[in-house]
């Protein structure tokens, strides 16, 4: 065994700061992805053919190509085509938001479709307008179906966020690699990074369970 964690100690704060970067990255991507995903899901269940077609094609493309490819295209193509410089963080957030929106839109669409058709009929028979029917009757019930899958997507996003290290964003992963390269010892910092990711994912899992329990109060 050739392990020396003592050498790692001075670099620990540097790696830990990556948590903040990763969390920021994931949080912004999540919020944007969720909003855009909700819009896409409404396109999918809506009556406007062109929007439905667009949302389906969008989902198909983003699910059908590698995430890392999407990120590299956004990171390199945007400056080349528009002349605008785009930072690694921005490119990463943009990629993850656009990509996870495709998955989230499918999750939400399935959740809405799983709500009993009688709920919609009851609301219609009472003369409730479409907007309040969706917001107050259908979506709250859909959330219960959606939450476990959504939490899964959030966990995936947290883990996959490590690939922004490829374009040089200073997240947990990238910092662990930098520390490894400067000490010529990779195993220890990577182990630490792994531990951090694992704890982050556990926290998300627990949060999801608490939220599910709260939503289940009417059962």
């Amino acid at each position, binding site marked *: 065994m050739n392990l020396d964690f003592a050498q790692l100690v001075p670099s620990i704060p540097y790696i830990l700061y990556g948590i903040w970067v990763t969390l920021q990255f994931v949080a912004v991507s999540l919020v944007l992805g969720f909003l855009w995903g909700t819009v896409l899901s409404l396109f999918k269940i809506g009556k406007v053919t062109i929007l439905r077609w667009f949302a389906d094609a969008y989902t198909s493309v983003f699910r059908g190509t590698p995430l890392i490819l999407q990120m590299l295209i956004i990171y390199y193509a945007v400056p080349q085509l528009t002349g605008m410089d785009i930072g690694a963080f921005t490119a990463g957030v943009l990629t993850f938001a656009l990509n996870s929106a495709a998955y989230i839109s499918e999750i939400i669409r399935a959740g809405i479709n799983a709500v009993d058709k009688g709920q919609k009929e009851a609301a219609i*028979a009472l003369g*409730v307008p479409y907007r309040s029917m969706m917001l107050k009757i259908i979506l709250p019930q859909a959330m*219960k179906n959606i939450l476990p899958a959504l939490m899964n997507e959030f966990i995936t996003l947290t883990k996959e966020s490590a690939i922004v290290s490829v374009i040089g964003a200073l997240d947990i992963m990238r910092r662990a690699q930098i520390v490894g390269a400067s000490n010529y010892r990779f195993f220890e910092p990577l182990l630490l990074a792994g531990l951090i990711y694992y704890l982050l994912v556990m926290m998300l899992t627990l949060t999801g369970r608490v939220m599910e329990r709260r939503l289940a109060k009417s059962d």
Partner: protein
Amino acid sequence: MIDVNGLRKSFGPSEVLKGITTKISKGEVIAVIGPSGSGKSTFLRCLNLLETHNAGSIKIDGKEIDQLESNLRKKIGMVFQHFNLFPHLTVLENITFAPQQVLKTNKKEAEKNALELLQAVGLSDKAHAYPSRLSGGQKQRVAIARALAMNPEIMLFDEPTSALDPEMVKEVLQVMKNLVKTGMTMVIVTHEMGFAKEVADRVLFMDDGRLVEDEQPAIFFENPKTERAQVFLEKVL
């Protein structure tokens, strides 16, 4: 009040309603009976536009109904076979939701009205319970109260007791009988022949998408004219 003329409805290639013509007057209680698949429920659902008919016309107080006339829908209450209560709302919220959203009744008044309705259906003590805590019969009584909270002029019932355990049927029928006494116009799709005989002013017997008999219950049940009605009654009575 309701004037149905040559009503036709198809689902894909199969025609479920093959020209229904009838009139329903204010205060009348109509029982719609017939074998399953005869188009009873579809007929009822056409009356409040849950299904759009392909041909013919439905007029309520002389006005043609179509999707744009959402005001007409406020006049019509509907009770479903499977209750369709909103599971994430309490009993009280179920009843006050539509009055607040649609009629813009303020919360206090909607709740006062809801509590009166709950008393009328014998469920005052369940106001703050969630639907999952209620028995089938209780759910259906809440559903009736929910529909009544919109002050409808017509109440439609789509097999309101078909999904209930036998011992719960009576309590729901009792609530409906009380409603009959108030003079409410009611159209009831039902398999409860005893109930139809007792409370209905007219029985509409449907078979294979057609209105086969339109008769007073005393005459229909004692002396059905058509062979199809005779065969049906032999099976169910």
